[in-house]
């Protein structure tokens, strides 16, 4: 059997087992609702959840655009200058690995609750993977391509436009793929933490109200949209990388 079919079958079986366990009373329906209950709740939830999701996605999109611009721009600069990259590298890696939520309370303190801290924090999250991957991509550009271009009369700006930029496209795409998940993550965290209107606040509210089926339904909604976005970016990436 083909992998896709087996995946679908596995998911189906898992759902059946879950449904069976819920009906047999093996799990407390207050905490783990049956899939059918979740499906019913999904209809109810769509009314409030969809606008919230839209708001979150819009904020994430703005944060994402900023993150990509900053990440690619700085990545090109730092990647092209070996010394700069080496000096900054421990700072960048440390900043990437540290829980950025530590600065969130301070950001909220200064910017209040609303779109601004969400965009800022989303950008902060989405920026790092793009930056690090672009730096790596620039560092990996084959020197012989640059030598060839120089030998054929390329001027400095042409070295960027004809060699470096096309060469780093796979790295940029990889960064962008991570970046969207991270930017979305950042926005959701702000919404959960500060109650800013959006999907994160929606999920937190359902959890606090112990509305398990609605919570699961909303979670399912967000997950599906997120997976769809990433799959779309993957397909786009494959299209643009036919030459590999």
């Amino acid at each position, binding site marked *: 059997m083909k992998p896709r079919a087996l995946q679908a079958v596995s998911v189906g079986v898992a759902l059946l087992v879950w449904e069976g366990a819920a009906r047999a009373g093996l799990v407390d329906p207050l905490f783990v609702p049956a899939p059918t209950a979740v499906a019913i709740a999904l209809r109810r939830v769509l009314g409030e959840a969809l606008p919230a999701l839209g708001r979150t996605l819009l904020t994430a999109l703005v944060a994402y655009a900023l993150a990509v611009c900053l990440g690619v721009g700085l990545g090109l600069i730092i990647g092209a200058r070996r010394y700069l990259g080496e000096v900054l590298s421990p700072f960048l890696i440390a900043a990437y690995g540290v829980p950025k939520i530590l600065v969130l309370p301070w950001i909220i303190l200064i910017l209040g609750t609303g779109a601004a801290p969400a965009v800022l924090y989303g950008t902060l999250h989405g920026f790092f993977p793009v930056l690090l991957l672009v730096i790596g991509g620039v560092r990996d550009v084959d020197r012989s391509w640059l*030598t*060839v271009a*120089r030998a*054929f*009369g*390329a001027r400095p700006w042409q070295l960027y436009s*004809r*060699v470096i930029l*096309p060469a780093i496209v796979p790295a940029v795409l990889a960064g962008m793929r991570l970046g969207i998940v991270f930017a979305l993550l950042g926005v959701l965290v702000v919404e959960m933490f500060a109650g800013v209107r959006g999907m994160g606040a929606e999920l937190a509210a359902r959890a606090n109200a112990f509305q398990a089926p609605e919570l699961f339904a909303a979670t399912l909604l967000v997950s599906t949209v997120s997976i769809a976005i990433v799959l779309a970016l993957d397909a786009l990436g494959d299209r643009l990388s036919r*030459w590999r």
Partner: protein
Amino acid sequence: MPPGARTGADVAEAHIVVEGVTKRFETSSGPVLAVKDVSLAVARREFCTIIGPSGCGKSTLLAMIGGLVPPDAGTILIDGRPQPGPDPRRVALVFQDPGLLPWRTALDNIAFGLELRGVPRPDRRRIAGDLLGPLGLREFAERYPRELSGGMRQRVAIGRALALDSEIVLMDEPFGALDEQTRLLMGEWLLSVWTRARKTVVFVTHSLQEALFLSTRVVALTARPGRVKSVLDLPLPYPRDLESAELASFRAKLWGEIREESLKAMEP
């Protein structure tokens, strides 16, 4: 008078004149003298091969003629004028690593130099397209480098150099990474292209066979630091029979010059 010039008049008419050129490199273990006081002249439409043991500076010399690297001392004149930097209108280069841009098709790679010069798209596609026949790549115009064999990639690289229609083509061990059969075939193909295109070629190799098969003149360099050891003229017609007695005597002469230097290069 630079070796290789037959008379003073030749120097004046020579296409490329290298005079007293020296180049030093800074390495982690201190400065290294790659090329020392090298002088030679290359006449128009000549196929001049530079041969020598590993590390003798022949690639450095070629890079200097191509304007990629400035000499520390001496001058290099092309058509009587010095070269401050790469000038693809006069001199085109082919490297051992074809250096094709992997995100471009074969055709777009051939057109690369033209694109950098600002030639409009339809014109450069036409010029590159016209070269596909002689390059034997007509069916591969829209393929990507990863779909091409080593020999094909090198043909694209040579096509890229030819597309600029410069008078001089420099080649740095272009067939070095290919297997023997392919090398022989590429050598024959290169000769056919050269006789038609009538360019001045400076060809670097460490293969005696290639030097004898392809060139009108061979310049042998010493081991590092490279100096001109001797110049051998090969006034033989093409195509050449590698088994002929004439070529054998030239080979013996050439090997005699090179063997000593190769031994020196092998010493630590």
